[in-house]
């Protein structure tokens, strides 16, 4: 049976891994290669490297560190941030990344999802969605790497997730902005709504604080993977202990 995935996310800024609270006030937490190897050794199923400044600055990610990571890592990894063209994606995939994730550029030009899927296959194309609860509904935000540039979009989250799948996305990572960095648990109701409209894998992001939060998001929201950053970077949750507990709970997990 397919295992649910535990995915540490390494937010990258200027070649360093950083983490802020609710997308603000970033502090440096360590070196990319060092952290990548540490998480691999601890049992991470996959890693996401997210260049949090690239999209809002109009830059693309530099690919030399992608190749450095690909040389040492024997688990899959995804690169996100600032990929806005076939050429940009090709550089990263040829550099050794397994998947690329697009967020703001997909909102600017939804056809990019289809072009990427046609060229590299849907399985390489992840669409990241930054979603905020407003009133009784969820809405997609753009350029969230910089709070000063964050914008509303015309999309309800559930509609954009469905559209992304329709256009050829192979996976959706749903970043629940209200929960991000708060460690109060994943947004299970929202993830459940989005899970119900997708046939492709869904990865939860934002809110992990305890082992029980992972249990809940797998059991109650039915997501394929759970992404987290600060609890892993700060050592609040150790991956081996997390996995042992989830296995004891009867959840399908790679030991």
């Amino acid at each position: 049976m397919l295992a649910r995935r535990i995915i540490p996310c390494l937010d990258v800024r200027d070649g360093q891994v950083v983490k802020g609270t609710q997308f603000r006030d970033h502090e440096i937490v360590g070196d990319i290669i060092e952290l990548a190897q540490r998480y691999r050794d601890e049992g991470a199923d996959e890693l996401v490297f997210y260049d949090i400044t690239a999209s809002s600055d109009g830059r693309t990610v530099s690919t030399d560190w992608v190749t450095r990571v690909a040389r040492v890592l024997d688990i899959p990894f995804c690169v996100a941030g600032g990929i806005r063209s076939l050429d940009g994606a090709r550089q990263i995939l040829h550099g050794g990344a397994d998947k690329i994730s697009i967020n703001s550029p997909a909102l600017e030009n939804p056809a990019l999802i289809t072009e990427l899927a046609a060229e590299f296959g849907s399985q390489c194309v992840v669409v990241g969605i930054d979603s905020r609860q407003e009133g009784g509904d969820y809405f997609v935000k753009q350029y969230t790497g910089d709070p000063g540039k964050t914008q509303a979009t015309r999309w309800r989250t559930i509609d954009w997730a469905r559209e992304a799948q329709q256009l050829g996305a192979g996976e959706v990572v749903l970043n629940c902005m209200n929960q991000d960095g708060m460690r109060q648990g994943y947004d299970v109701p929202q993830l459940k709504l989005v899970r119900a409209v997708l046939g492709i894998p869904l990865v939860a992001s934002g809110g992990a604080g305890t082992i029980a939060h992972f249990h809940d998001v797998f059991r109650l929201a039915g997501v394929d993977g759970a992404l987290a950053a600060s609890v892993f970077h700060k050592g609040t949750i150790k991956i081996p202990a997390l996995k042992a507990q989830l296995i004891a709970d009867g959840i399908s997990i790679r030991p």
Partner: protein
Amino acid sequence: MLAIVDSGGANIASVRFALERLGVQSELTADPAVIRAATRVILPGVGSAVEGMKRLQAKGLVDCVRGLTQPVLGICLGMQLLFENSEEGPTETLGLIPGTVALLPESPGITVPHMGWNTVLTGRDPGLLDGIGPDARFYFVHSYAAPVNAFTVASCDHGRPFTAIVQRGNFSGVQFHPERSGPAGARLLKNFVEGRV
């Protein structure tokens, strides 16, 4: 010398790096003469079957790969291309192993692409799995899959059973990515490189 067929797909760098970690030198090449002269050949590939076949045709490699007599290992799309046809397109593929590659159906709790770590089931004792325990998990990422047939040496289940490892004569293939499957994947590549096929 081990040749990696430069089929222009996306995961070629990862395969080469995985071999480097094992201390194995490889040559990434689209030259039929170099491929024919290699002791072993890896046919990698990510993307659609149509694009994969087009790239092999464009580089004049279809007959070259079909005619290889040394051990060949197809990975992911490279394995799917060993079969006769793919519904992805649809397209005719290399025809070295009977069967048609088809889309995995979605159902509640079964997401497609099949993406993540899964176990494989084997009723035989394939050399490629030498030293790898039955609980080992491999990293899969694909939407299309080959049927289980007489040449299946290990299967996987995602909504329905499909071929995870296939072998016919000198041609072997794995649907998962050994280069991204941690120590189990490294051992499988080592088994191939050292002739335990």
